[in-house]
């Protein structure tokens, strides 16, 4: 049976570390499929001006295509060139919730992320995305240091 790994990217070096680790793990497992995911942080409960609302659909399309082009597509290509099979997903939402939702949809076996160096006050109080993911996920999560 094929093992499916979800790899969370953040467009930074930490995402690259998660990707490297996921590729190595996939080679060890053998029959493995990778899904690279980039989440655009977004809340349906934020406040916007009327003009921002009117342009929202357009901006969303732009955000998705930019994320696909600059982050997800290069990652998929890198994995494929290494002889592994990979697909990419871009979605808006809360990073932890969206990663878990995608893992469920894809019937994945594991989520791999890297710890980012989030040090802001709100992150300390409410926990960063990685901490939230670890606390809420119902499947194994590997956090690359």
């Amino acid at each position, binding site marked *: 049976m094929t093992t499916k790994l979800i790899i969370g990217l953040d467009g930074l070096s930490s995402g690259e570390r998660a990707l490297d680790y996921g590729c190595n793990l996939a080679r060890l497992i053998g029959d493995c499929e990778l899904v690279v995911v980039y989440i*655009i942080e*977004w809340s*349906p*409960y*934020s*406040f*916007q*001006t*009327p*003009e*921002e*609302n*009117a*342009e*929202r*659909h*357009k901006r*969303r*399309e732009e*955000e*998705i295509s930019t994320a696909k082009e600059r982050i997800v597509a290069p990652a998929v290509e890198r994995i494929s060139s290494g002889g592994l099979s990979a697909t990419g997903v871009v*979605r*808006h*939402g809360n990073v932890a919730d*969206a990663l878990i*939702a995608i893992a469920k949809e894809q019937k994945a076996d594991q989520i791999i992320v890297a710890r980012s160096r989030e040090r802001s006050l709100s992150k300390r109080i409410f926990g960063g995305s990685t901490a939230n993911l670890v606390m809420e996920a119902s499947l194994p999560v590997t956090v690359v240091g």
Partner: protein
Amino acid sequence: MKNPIRTGLLALPLVGSLSAPAIAQEAMSLDDKVNEAFANATGPFVNLIFAPFPGTDFPWIVMWLVVAATVFTLYFAFVQFRFFGHAIALVKGDYSDPNDAGEVSHFQALATALSGTVGLGNIAGVAVAVGIGGPGATFWMILAGLLGMASKFTECTLGVKYRNEYPDGTVSGGPMYYMSKGFGELGLPGGKILAILFSIFCILGALGGGNMFQANQAHAQISGIVGDYPGWITGLVFAGVVFMVIVGGVKSIARVTEKIVPFMGILYVGAALIIILVNYDKIGWAFGQIFQGAFTGLGVAGGMVGALIQGFKRAAFSNEAGVGSAAIAHSAVRTKEPITEGFVSLLEPLIDTVVICTMTALVITISGQLIIDPATGLYVLDGNQISTVDGNSGVALTSAAFGSAIGWFPYVLALAVVLFAFSTMISWSYYGLKAWTYLFGEGKTTELVFKLIFCVFIVIGAAASLGPVIDFSDAAIFAMAVVNIFALYFLMKVVRKELASYSARLASGEIRKFVS
């Protein structure tokens, strides 16, 4: 503050008391001349819109709004109560497709529209209503707010249904679009003419009540605290900031305001609740005053009818139900079912009028600012106003009522008024712009022209004494309601069809929650 309308009444006393005659005598006389000329030119229009029914002081425009709200309530069989729970579920996102994440949510559309309506009307307008009509006005205000929910439902459903979606993914919606497209679809003539009329009134209302009046009131508040100084300074600062947001695209400023404004609203309601709870022994008495006053007047000018007029007037002026502005704000939401935005929008008059305005009225009543004759139990009158402890009215009365319980709160209130003024300007600059582009076409240059005009009017609004101009802009906003409600009567059957279809699919389980 947000809303121009609500504030029309307060404009004169508030501005009069706070903007001292620091301007040179010659300038004053020039201002007077300009004001007089303007008043003469626009007087007939203003008088027509605000004309009372013969033999009463009940403006027909208020009756127009209340009758429409009642008709929509009956026509849709009390939709505001039947679908109230569903509206909450929609705002929570229970019915939102996770694949649409990143689009405008129901919550965002509601919050944006609310930030355009919650404002000085809730703070000062209510004080005017209670100061003249007594606590009994609150009862009628709540009733009108509940009925107004059906008007919002109707106009916002149509706003989404007939909006324009452009190839680049942006949207434009509002009464002008449902008038032209909706009438065309039904084979009715005159839709285009109504749309043009509406757009003209909307631009005038945006430049006047949504702009000059806001700048004027903000300046009055600031100079009331730091001392008097020329209004054009406030005007230039405001114009500069608004320019950065709407022309420069500095979204961060708008975003900060959009975050502070809801916070201010919550702080306001929170403070009101604390005052009410601390005086819990008076809650029963206050509600007694509200119900008793609603039907007897408790000695206010005009008795029960006086209380009713003030309550209806304030609710209509505060929540803008039927004016059509909300239909512009709500039309950006991403939904496959236009009627869902109608359900969500009906929460707006509830929050604005039934909750926030009632809080203000309760605090004023409980604070004991209104003087009661101990012998008769009736309110003591000073002219047609109820006598207050320090002779305050309008925003000063609300401020005194909160200040009597929380000493520093008047400063927070002043800050809230200024911020509300700013976010109202941002909202109305958009409403005006949509009407402008409807008339003159979409395009960067056309839009820039309107935005520049808008900024110039901020300076004028803060600098001048603008009684007649304010009357005119308030009249323009209510003229929007005349055209809008007229169109709604023809288009309401479209909404009824949508409602029947949606209810059936909801009942059959075809439309269901995405969350487990």
